[in-house]
């Protein structure tokens, strides 16, 4: 194994050349590592997105089936104007669906409206008039709905507005599962300040349907609605500040006794967004599809996933392109170096040294260089990876944002109220999530092992390419002529 010693003596004696080789190899490996880091970070970010962004399946009334039913009634009886009847979701059905695997939690939504009694609603002034339907100076709604929107939920934290931080509790607390069968309510900040309401106060509302009883509600929290929701209120709709959150049981009470144990929609959170389709298929078997429908929403996940897939794909290309280019560059350098060392090879051959040992000596020399280069690249690669990764993510997210903004439908989405992800701000929010997705580049032992593998492969290939000359070399031609 004398070639190890020869390799070391050569690397040590030719320090200048060795340093240059280390610099070239470090530069190559730094880019390889940057690619590897971005790739692994993108994979990590995608799996993180699964947990963070999530996906939902919503159980609600089958509007399409109800509409068809209404149409068939229209043709059979032309005497009276038919009405579309939506069957509220039975909570017992929701519980069955909730027991499917991959469903982590579920949120019940039941919306209705009531009229203000002990307070005044917030009125919105627009060029087309005021949107207040019940308050003083307001315009009466064309329908029999009340002036205050009641969003009955399982917990406010499970609603889209609160989970994506568009709405925030500023005082007190949100509605929780413990508020079931209570008259607790969370009111909007503007409504609270207009009526000097604070946490612990009571307010009275009047039912918009049925007996039109007055009901006392206790304020347990005050929230701040998102600016987008206020700016998007249409002239005919109630101001978003007039939306109160209660337990779904209270909302059902306002709607009437026949709504007990029902909901407008139930949103199921799917723990693994990739399993959304299978959850939907399994859920359909548990419900009466002529009355109910199951709709999925994994757009946020898909947006982030697409963004990360782009980054991962690009990182893969970087790794392979740099590895191939690096091999070629190193092979050329090694070929030139070996050409300079023909006499040395000749002397070794004249001493009877085996050709493979001469190749092994050059390989060992390059290996020593690569080991140092891997260490340098390990330090520098994190920096390059961070810079490159941030650039890639922002570019990719911009592309995703541009693509997805064309598909967003104002006011679209699920008929699930708070559980759905529709609405004008939803696509922007998804793109924002993709933009906010940061590539966390960290150099792990696995990354370094991968880099070492690439370094070894590059060294091996470049030496193999350059070794053709050694195998063909005739000592007589070098030494005698």
């Amino acid at each position, binding site marked *: 194994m004398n070639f190890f010693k020869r390799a070391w003596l050569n690397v040590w004696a030719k320090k200048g050349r060795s340093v240059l080789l280390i610099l070239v190899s470090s530069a190559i490996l730094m880019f390889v590592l940057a690619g590897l880091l971005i790739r692994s970070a993108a994979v990590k970010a995608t799996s993180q997105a699964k947990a963070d962004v999530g996906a939902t399946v919503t159980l609600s009334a089958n509007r399409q089936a109800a509409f068809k039913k209404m149409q068939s009634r229209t043709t059979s009886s032309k005497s009276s104007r038919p009405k579309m009847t939506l069957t509220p979701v039975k909570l017992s059905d929701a519980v069955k669906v909730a027991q499917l695997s991959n469903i982590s939690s579920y949120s019940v939504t039941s919306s209705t409206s009531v009229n203000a009694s002990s307070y005044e609603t917030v009125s919105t002034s627009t060029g087309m008039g005021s949107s207040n339907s019940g308050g003083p100076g307001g315009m009466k709604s064309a329908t029999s709905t009340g002036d205050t929107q009641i969003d009955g939920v399982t917990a406010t934290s499970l609603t889209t507005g609160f989970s994506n931080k568009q709405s925030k509790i500023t005082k007190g607390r949100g509605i929780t599962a413990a508020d079931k069968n209570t008259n607790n309510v969370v009111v909007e900040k503007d409504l609270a300040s207009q009526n000097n309401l604070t946490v612990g106060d009571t307010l009275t509302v009047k039912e918009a349907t049925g007996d039109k009883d007055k009901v006392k509600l206790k304020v347990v929290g005050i929230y701040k609605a998102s600016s987008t929701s206020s700016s998007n209120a249409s002239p005919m709709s109630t101001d978003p500040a007039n939306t109160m959150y209660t337990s779904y049981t209270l909302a059902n009470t306002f709607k009437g006794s026949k709504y007990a144990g029902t909901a407008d929609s139930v949103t199921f959170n799917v723990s693994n967004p990739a399993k959304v389709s299978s959850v939907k298929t399994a859920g359909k078997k548990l419900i009466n599809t002529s009355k109910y429908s199951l709709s999925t929403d994994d757009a946020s996940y898909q947006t982030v996933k697409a963004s990360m897939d782009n980054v991962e794909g690009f990182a893969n290309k970087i790794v392979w392109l740099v590895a191939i280019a690096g091999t070629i560059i190193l092979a050329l350098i090694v070929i030139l170096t070996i050409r300079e060392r023909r006499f040395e090879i000749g002397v070794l051959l004249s001493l009877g040294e085996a050709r493979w040992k001469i190749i092994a000596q050059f390989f060992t020399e390059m290996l020593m260089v690569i080991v140092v280069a891997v260490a340098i690249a390990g330090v520098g690669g994190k920096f390059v990876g961070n810079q490159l990764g941030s650039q890639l993510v922002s570019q990719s997210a911009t592309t995703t944002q541009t693509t997805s903004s064309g598909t967003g439908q104002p006011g679209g989405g699920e008929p699930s109220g708070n559980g759905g992800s529709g609405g004008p701000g939803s696509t922007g929010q998804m793109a924002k999530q993709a933009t906010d997705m940061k590539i966390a580049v960290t150099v792990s032992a696995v990354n370094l092992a991968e880099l070492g593998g690439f370094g070894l492969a590059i060294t091996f290939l470049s030496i193999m390419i350059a070794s053709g000359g050694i195998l063909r070399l005739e000592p007589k031609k070098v030494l*005698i002529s």
Partner: protein
Amino acid sequence: MLKTEGLGYWYQDKDQPLFQGIDLEFDAGQSYAILGHSGSGKTTFLSLIAGLDQPKEGDIKLNERSLKQIGLTNFRRHDVSIVFQAYNLFTYMSPLNNLLTAMAITDAAHAGDKAYARQVLSDLGISTDLAERNVQHLSGGQQQRVAIARTMCCDAKLVVADEPTGNLDEDNTKEVIQQFQKIAHEQGKCVIIVTHEPDVASQCDHQFRLENKQFVELA
């Protein structure tokens, strides 16, 4: 010890061989000089008996075994030691490491023995200080002595030298030839020196001249 049987060599045209039908015998403990003018083929002959090339015709035998049987790489590793005009040392090593490397490659009995290598160098006038320096810092004469020391350290019984004094002055030439004589007479090796200098050749035990494609032994 070394025998050539009907040895012949040509480059492109078989009808214009450098030499043909050469039958020579070289014995251990003797020194031989091969003379000839430039281009006569004496260096080619040396490359054949050093195992650096294969003859086009005939055979070379070492102790009655053909080089083809022994294998050229094996032959070079264990049976022959070569000294070149241009010294051909490892330029990134010290004289000591040059000797240790050669001893390791050729599986010499003293492989790895630094003290022995130092002693051989010292016997040839290379001090301990010089032995540790890079060979490029040594004069031509000193480098040639290191090359000779390399052959002395290895156990090969055959030593061939191609114009070993070509780059040396008169004093160094004399000293180098004396060393070759020592190798032949004291170590019992067979030394074959290719030279174009009659003075050098005259100091060897036997002289051959290559002329008209044949070797002629000089008196």
